[in-house]
């Protein structure tokens, strides 16, 4: 067995391309394992985790290829293949020529709303974002783990220039019916959404679409925007951009109370809803309905507009009993994971999580014998691989594995459709065992590229209970768990 490394200096390719090359390498005869990654601090660790210890000379601004193979020739051939794949014309994307950052200002005209969508490794965000702001361009920063100081500096600079900085860690935006990042194909309408929760925005927009309503724009401001440190800078700017819509939704996970008040003060004179996701709250402040539940938020607007509310599921036919006493929740949407914990808690089931409601329920090292809701899009689960919404294989493998356990009462998960998400979000789920109660919801519309009906039929054939919303799926799971003595 031989291990070979190759450094390609001064190159950048996005992680999805490099992941595809890694997989191709691992599929070659005689290759035991392989990795091709841009050299970031995280990827040095990822290489180590998969069993490659890079030479001490490994530095930044390069791509490293690592191959373990049965013999020298196989390893060299694999590296040659990777280099060939990397050398394919990268100045074009599907026939479209790339432009450079320094000429963005020449690429748009008055009346345009120019946006730079940034999905590079986090180390590079500050420099790129700063250059774009100087070019008069708004930002949608998809990249996460950008330091708070950098975020605040960028947002202050954007505000001074009259530019909106969405993100960092902004998963979803819809502008005039067009989606950036992870977004569903929803009807155009007169509702505006501003949120620091990407999957929260998706769930609201899908439920509105399903109920016959439409979205004018949904602006994802990034997970930290309504925290104390950032102070809601982008949320308040985004609301000003949506002054012409009929109804406003704002959604945030654990918003800072002072920021929340400032936001509600901004919207309370018009039909609006503020969702403090997972909080136990139910109040009216002026014309604003303040709730902790996405379903309650949407139903309130539907009621106010004289429309039918989202249908409620029937109680489960089977509840947990005997040895089946554990809940396993595996989510690709962080906010749906968070909301599920709150609904389960209200229903009497405490669950541990890597993104817990409070630290008391932080996922322990050994979580074999406790109920859990895991956000599989969290950093520790996506090292060296794309987000599970793009590549659901690892999340689905967890579902298959846990479904075979005799002590699991209910398996709860989410299915996200839409732009940015995998064509087959159910890949690999055919091996799921029907022992536990299986429950999910589909965050998607019949217009989404994955084919809603096809996905629904496949879930039915797998024996999965499909509810109308993620909140209902969590409620259903909580009902099943009522059979378990806590």
């Amino acid at each position: 067995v031989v291990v070979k490394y190759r450094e390609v200096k001064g190159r950048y390719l996005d992680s999805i391309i490099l992941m595809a090359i890694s997989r191709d390498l691992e599929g070659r005869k005689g290759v035991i394992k392989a990795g091709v990654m841009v050299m970031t601090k995280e990827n040095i660790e990822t290489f180590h985790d998969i069993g490659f210890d890079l030479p001490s000379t490994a530095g930044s601004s390069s791509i490293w290829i690592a191959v373990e193979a049965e013999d020298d020739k196989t390893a060299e051939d694999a590296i040659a293949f990777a280099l060939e794949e990397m050398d394919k014309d990268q100045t074009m994307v599907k026939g479209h020529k790339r432009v450079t950052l320094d000429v963005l200002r020449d690429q748009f005209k008055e009346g345009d709303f120019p946006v730079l969508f940034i999905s590079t490794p986090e180390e590079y965000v500050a420099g790129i974002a700063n250059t774009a702001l100087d070019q008069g361009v708004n930002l949608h920063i998809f990249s996460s783990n950008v330091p708070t100081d950098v975020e605040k500096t960028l947002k202050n600079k954007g505000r001074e220039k009259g530019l909106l900085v969405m993100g960092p860690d902004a998963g979803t935006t819809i502008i005039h019916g067009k989606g950036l990042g992870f977004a569903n194909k929803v009807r155009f309408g007169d509702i505006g959404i501003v949120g620091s929760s990407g999957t929260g925005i998706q769930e609201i927009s899908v439920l509105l679409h399903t109920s016959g309503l439409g979205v004018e724009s949904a602006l994802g401001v990034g997970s930290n925007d309504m925290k104390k440190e950032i102070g809601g800078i982008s949320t308040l700017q985004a609301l000003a951009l949506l002054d012409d819509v009929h109804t406003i939704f704002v959604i945030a996970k654990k918003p800072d109370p002072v920021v929340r008040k400032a936001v509600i003060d901004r919207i309370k004179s018009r039909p609006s809803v503020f969702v403090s996701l997972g909080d136990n709250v139910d109040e009216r402040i002026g014309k604003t309905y303040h709730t902790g539940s996405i379903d309650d938020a949407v139903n309130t607007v539907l009621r106010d507009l004289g429309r039918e509310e989202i249908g409620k599921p029937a109680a489960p036919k089977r509840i947990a009993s005997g040895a089946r006493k554990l809940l396993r929740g595996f989510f690709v949407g962080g906010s749906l994971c968070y909301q599920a914990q709150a609904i389960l808690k209200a229903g009497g089931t405490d669950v541990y999580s890597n993104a817990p409601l409070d630290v008391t329920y932080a996922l322990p090292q050994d979580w074999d014998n406790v109920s859990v809701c895991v956000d599989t899009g969290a950093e520790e689960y996506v090292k060296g691989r794309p987000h599970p919404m793009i590549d659901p294989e690892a999340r689905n493998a967890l579902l298959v594995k846990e479904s075979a356990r005799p002590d699991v009462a209910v398996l709860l998960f989410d299915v996200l459709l839409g732009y940015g998400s995998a064509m087959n979000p159910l890949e690999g789920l055919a091996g799921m065992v029907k022992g536990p109660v299986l429950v999910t919801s589909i965050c998607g519309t019949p217009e989404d590229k994955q084919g809603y009906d096809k996905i629904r039929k496949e879930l039915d054939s797998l024996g999965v209970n499909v509810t109308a919303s993620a909140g209902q799926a969590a409620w259903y799971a909580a009902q099943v768990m009522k059979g378990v003595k806590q």
Partner: protein
Amino acid sequence: VIGRLKVFSVGADWFYEEMKAQDIDAKPVEWIPPVEVPDDIASILSSLKR
């Protein structure tokens, strides 16, 4: 009021391709990492100074 959407995309081409699938007026952005990545927040912040 938000004007006509014009998008530039830097980083993962996956997202750019998803934009084109929606007929968004979008352009991919060429970008090569700087020779050295700033390894502490202070240097990142200083790069933001105008």
